[in-house]
């Protein structure tokens, strides 16, 4: 039972491996993928109350990891459902695409349960490698010819960040003589004032900063978002970031004794991420590129929660990343439906969307309002809690700068909304949406509103989960 979700994902991967050997029809692949994702989500929910250690203490199943597994599985299910037949992926490699997506999922699910440095490293690599391969699988029929370039950029920056992480891990091992997080947590307070411990911790964090796209590790974002297929970008924008936040919580809770130095650096990263992301997003014409830059800014906001080193701060970071994933999934659902051939969408391609596809226009509007931080949606409540938490820790300057950033961000989010509602369709035809996409978008809208209006149950759940690892 402890290992059931992982085994299910492995089994699903095997199933798709078998599918790649034959020549299954489009419908078979899609139905298989949706069914498999639903089963994975079901097993994750089934195992939510399990606790225990596996693999000689390298793998820990607790409420914290199980909740993240449910979130990862749910987000993947949504990506699988709105994939729209994977229009952006080469036709002959669609089963392989699902296989890689599942393997990446396996890596992320194992990552949130790993409590040993080597296991963390390998699980992170597993999840990253699969995504590196998925990026260049985009077909050139979409009129985009730099998917290879995007894939290589993603790979090279990723290897660099991983190298930093490994180097930091070697320092930690040299200082403490152990690779298990428990052992490190015991010894780090004694080593707190040594510069080597601080440097090592920051280097390890950088591996996850890369996944979350925080400022000095953000260089891959715009090109990968633009070069990868819409479905791939939806996955990259939502799912790995949740796992990255889970690991950042595990690791920053170790670093909390290291005081000023780590705190200051996290603050600088947070401020730079917010300003860089928001200011660059202002001038973007491509919708996915804009969402990529806005993702950098949102990652800066999440750091606001982490650098409080407090339970409530961590809980609001979890709440915020879940909300962020929801809003992004909603945005990408719309993108995948509007881009009928899997092409990239400019912001001007959305003109008159309220006539061409009213439900999609509504979904996009709710998601963008929420990203901008307008009440009563989940984005507002998340930002509010993060700013409140940072204010309680007397980071007044940080909160002020974050508030300024919210104001900057409203401009570019709302200019997309303006394009959707206040311009003619310019001869662009109606968007064909199926029943599935419509109901999925309404569900996402409902969840975004409900989580924004009634956040307390989720925050309480997140707090009780984080208590198990502190």
């Amino acid at each position, binding site marked *: 039972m402890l290992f059931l979700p992982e085994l299910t994902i492995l089994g699903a991967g095997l199933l798709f491996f078998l599918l790649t050997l034959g020549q299954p029809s489009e419908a078979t692949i899609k139905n298989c993928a949706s069914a498999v994702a639903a089963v994975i989500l079901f097993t994750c929910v089934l195992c939510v109350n399990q606790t225990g250690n596996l*693999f000689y203490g390298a793998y820990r199943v607790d409420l914290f990891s199980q909740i993240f597994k449910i979130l990862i599985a749910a987000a993947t299910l949504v990506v699988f459902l709105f994939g729209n037949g994977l229009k952006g992926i080469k036709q002959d*490699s669609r089963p392989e695409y699902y296989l890689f997506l599942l393997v990446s999922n396996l890596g992320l699910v194992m990552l949130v349960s790993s409590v040993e440095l080597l*296991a963390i490293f390998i699980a992170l690599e597993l999840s990253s490698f699969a995504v590196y391969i998925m990026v*260049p699988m985009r077909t050139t029929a979409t009129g985009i010819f730099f998917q290879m370039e995007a894939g290589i950029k993603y790979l090279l920056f990723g290897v660099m960040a991983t190298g930093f992480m490994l180097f930091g891990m070697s320092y930690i091992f040299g*200082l403490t003589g152990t690779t298990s997080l428990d052992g490190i947590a015991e010894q780090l307070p004694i080593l707190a004032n040594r510069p080597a411990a601080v440097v090592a911790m920051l280097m390890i964090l950088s591996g996850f900063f890369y996944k979350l796209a925080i400022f000095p590790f953000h260089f891959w974002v715009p090109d990968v978002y633009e070069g990868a297929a819409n479905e791939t970008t939806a996955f990259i924008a939502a799912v790995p970031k949740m796992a990255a936040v889970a690991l950042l919580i595990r690791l920053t809770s170790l670093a909390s004794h290291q005081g000023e130095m780590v705190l200051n650096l996290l603050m600088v990263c947070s401020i730079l991420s917010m300003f860089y992301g928001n200011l660059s997003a202002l001038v973007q014409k491509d919708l996915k590129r804009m969402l990529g830059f806005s993702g950098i800014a949102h990652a800066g906001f999440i750091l606001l929660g982490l650098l409080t080193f407090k339970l409530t701060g961590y809980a609001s970071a979890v709440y915020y990343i879940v909300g962020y994933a929801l809003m992004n999934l909603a945005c990408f659902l719309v993108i995948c439906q509007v881009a009928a051939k899997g092409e990239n969408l400019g912001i001007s391609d959305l003109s008159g969307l309220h006539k061409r596809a009213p439900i999609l226009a509504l979904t996009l509007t709710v998601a963008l309002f929420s990203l901008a931080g307008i009440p009563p949606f989940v984005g507002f409540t998340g930002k509010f809690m993060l700013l409140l938490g940072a204010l309680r820790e007397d980071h007044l300057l940080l909160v002020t700068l974050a508030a300024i950033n919210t104001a900057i961000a409203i401009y570019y989010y709302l200019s997309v909304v303006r394009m959707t509602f206040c311009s003619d369709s310019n001869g662009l035809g109606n968007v064909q949406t199926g029943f599935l996409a419509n109901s999925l978008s309404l569900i996402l809208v409902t969840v975004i509103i409900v989580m924004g209006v009634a956040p307390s149950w989720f925050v309480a759940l997140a707090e009780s989960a984080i208590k198990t690892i502190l």
Partner: protein
Amino acid sequence: MMKTLFSADGLVGLLFLFNLIVTVVGGIVACNAERLVRAVIGLVVCFVGVAGIYFFLNSPFIAMMHILIYIGAVAVAISFAIMLAAPEEKMRTGPTSPLSGPIGLISTLLLISGLVSLALKTEWTSVTKINDGSVKTIGIQLLTNHSMVFELISIVLLLAILGALVIARGGREE
């Protein structure tokens, strides 16, 4: 007390230094060679140096594996790839800013000096020797304490093979 160069420790230190230099020189050749084949040779030299360092760190098995796998397999695979793909020589990327060299040099020097002073000033806990580093103990460790990592690595390798096949299968779409 200064150790003389010709004592046992001094000679060992000299050999260690030699390995270090081989590694660094190999790395520099690999990064700066004009032709890809020469870069691969630089990589091989670098790997030999790293294997030597493993030997000094009391892990003869790892040193042997390093030579077998990295020089015997990886470097040969890269050479095959170069011969098959016949890449155009002297492909230069776009114009680089004249400032990029000095800025890179300065930041590298800063980073190196920082890391060196960090390594010198830190009191490292001398890790007690966990085991004898023999093949048998490594095997036992891999299948007990690190069994999860061991299994996951096999999935990573499978993924890499599949990924390479999927990307290379269709060739480039024109």
